[in-house]
């Protein structure tokens, strides 16, 4: 097998992992090759629009497990390959020198045992760090079930160490991934959290959930995320729209992956982490799924219209963040600027506020942008939905007489 064939097989098996961020580490160049960039750098964008910043590969796609949703499960008849540590180093170093990548993302199928697999990964990364003096970013996937001394060793070598929770509830996990249990994953997370320091996994940990393979509602998923953020200090939870790669009677048959739902989950995830929202604010047992027509924040604002409109010149930071069209950056700018001058609608534009959404929910110096009688749920809702260009286009095609 040529190196190119191997790379193709092992990149193809790794591509379903959503995480590709290279941020959060300040690793310096210590006389060798490379350094980390705190903000992270995207080096390319794939045809699906996702960023490529790391060389995302599996060490091997051979696996002793048989998880139903996974391309690399034991019972699948696919081409298998394994990289030697030297091969991984050569590709990483040569890609890095040419500035194709920001570093390495190394995951693996499980061969022999979790410990054996981890040892091979550690050998590879040690080689990269010591023999090749590589100071670039490395994200490694911890293998669930591996022993703590190995977790300790690997964590000291890499910038980010993560384990995928894969499915939002343990019932689903039992159903689709009978060889895995979520205890093994949370054990890794707890270990990484407790040992996290400048020298141990400096860029923190993340995890991933598959969306749409099982029956959970958005509320279940967001509640899981919220508890993960709280208990393990995760940097990110990634949501990955389920793409059917295997046929199994336990798996749903989907025509297209639920990308819009994934998008809404990410929007809500941001609201949790940066906007001071809780899951109970945005979802409830009577209303367990996201509105696909409106983003979660606009949806919240419409359901709590009594709290609005907010006065730009007096509302506090968290009140400003609740307004659709105002983000973290623009809210901070408003707070800073209004100490020096009274803000008008015209100034808001210069501060990066998306006025076409915000205008319904704010007043500037007690002036409302539109006629006050228009401050009604129906009016605002229909206007917000109509502004979405995708909806606009799909409405147009529905009206067409000559629909194919």
């Amino acid at each position, binding site marked *: 097998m040529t190196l190119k064939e191997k790379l193709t097989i092992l990149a193809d098996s790794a591509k379903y992992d959503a995480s590709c961020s290279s941020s959060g580490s300040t690793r310096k*160049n210590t006389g060798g090759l490379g350094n980390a960039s705190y903000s992270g750098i995207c080096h390319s964008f794939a045809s699906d*629009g996702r960023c490529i910043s790391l060389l995302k590969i599996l060490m091997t796609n051979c696996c002793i497990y048989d998880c139903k949703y996974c391309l690399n499960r034991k019972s699948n008849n696919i081409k298998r390959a394994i990289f030697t540590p030297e091969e991984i180093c050569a590709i990483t170093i040569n890609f890095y020198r040419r*500035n194709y990548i920001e570093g390495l993302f190394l995951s693996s199928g499980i061969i022999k045992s979790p410990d054996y697999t981890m040892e091979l990964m550690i050998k590879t990364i040690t080689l990269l760090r010591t023999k090749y003096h590589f100071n670039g970013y490395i994200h490694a996937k911890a293998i669930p079930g591996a022993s703590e001394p190995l977790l300790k060793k690997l964590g000291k070598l890499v910038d980010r160490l993560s384990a995928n929770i894969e499915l939002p509830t343990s019932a689903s996990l039992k159903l689709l991934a009978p060889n895995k249990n979520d205890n093994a994953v949370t054990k890794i997370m707890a270990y990484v959290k407790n040992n996290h320091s400048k020298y141990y996994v400096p860029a923190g940990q993340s995890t991933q959930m598959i969306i749409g393979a099982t029956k959970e509602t958005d509320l279940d998923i967001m509640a899981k995320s919220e508890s993960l953020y709280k208990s393990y200090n995760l940097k990110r939870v990634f949501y990955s729209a389920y793409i059917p790669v295997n046929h199994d009677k336990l798996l749903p048959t989907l025509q297209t992956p639920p990308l819009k739902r994934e998008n809404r989950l990410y929007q809500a995830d941001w609201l949790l982490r940066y906007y001071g929202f809780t899951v109970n604010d945005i979802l409830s047992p009577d209303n367990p799924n996201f509105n696909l027509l409106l983003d979660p924040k606009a949806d919240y604002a419409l359901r709590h219209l009594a709290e609005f409109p907010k006065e730009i010149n007096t509302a506090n930071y968290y009140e400003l963040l609740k307004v659709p069209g105002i983000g973290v950056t623009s809210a901070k700018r408003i707070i800073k*600027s209004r100490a020096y*001058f009274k803000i008008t609608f015209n100034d808001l534009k210069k501060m990066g506020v998306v006025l076409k959404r915000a205008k319904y929910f704010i007043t500037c110096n007690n002036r409302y942008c539109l006629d006050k009688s228009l401050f009604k749920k129906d009016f605002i809702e229909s206007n917000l939905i109509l502004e979405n260009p995708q909806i606009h286009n799909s409405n147009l095609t529905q009206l067409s007489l000559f629909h194919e």
Partner: protein
Amino acid sequence: MNKIYIYEDTFLNLLTLIAYLTQYHVTPTNIKTSNYSPNLFEENITLNLKNNPKIIAYLKENYSYPLKIMYYVYLSSDTNKELIIYYFYLNLQKYRHQLLNMRNLKCVSASLKISHYVQNEAHKLKGFIRFTELTNKVLYAKVNPTNNVLIILANHFKKRLPNEYWIIHDENHHLLSIYDKKNIYLINEKNLQLNLQSTSTTYEDLWCAFYDTIGIKERKNIRCQMNFMPKKYWSNIIEMRNQNEKSN
């Protein structure tokens, strides 16, 4: 007559001129480099001031962040950048450290916007630059930025690839930055003859194979891809160059 003040195209010279103009309360119609051709109602004025490095030292000590913003605006390709810097500097004297919060002033919102644009482009190109290895082990890359971000890129790669010889060639501004494992040299492309014989393309082929594999077919989204990676940069990104050939 409308007075156009002329500066040599360096940041130091521009600041020297602006400091002089503000000191003597002269309001220029515009400030331009010497290749500016005035129209019927304008006249070019060259003051031949001696560069005053003290002004940069002063700003660095007292207003380091505003200085940074002025520098990024200077690197931009904005046609009005000199005048924007002039008014920014003028208001800096008046409002001092509060200036950056005064976004209702046009010179402030424009400066922040332009400097953001320049930094953004530099950040993007830190990722999009592609080096090829020449036969003499030198890494060579071409870039085509809209703004003059070469110096930002060179400083980035000095930290990242300190043990390599590399050259970054800015085709749009006709500049080269050359690194000899110690220092960065900025050179006009007229003054240099390069032998661009490159070595084997093994790793380029491997990279393109990786790139073609990593995209998920079911999620194809070209609009999104182009939003993040504008087409104007594609000519120097090897994996995209091949995409163009494929679609033709």
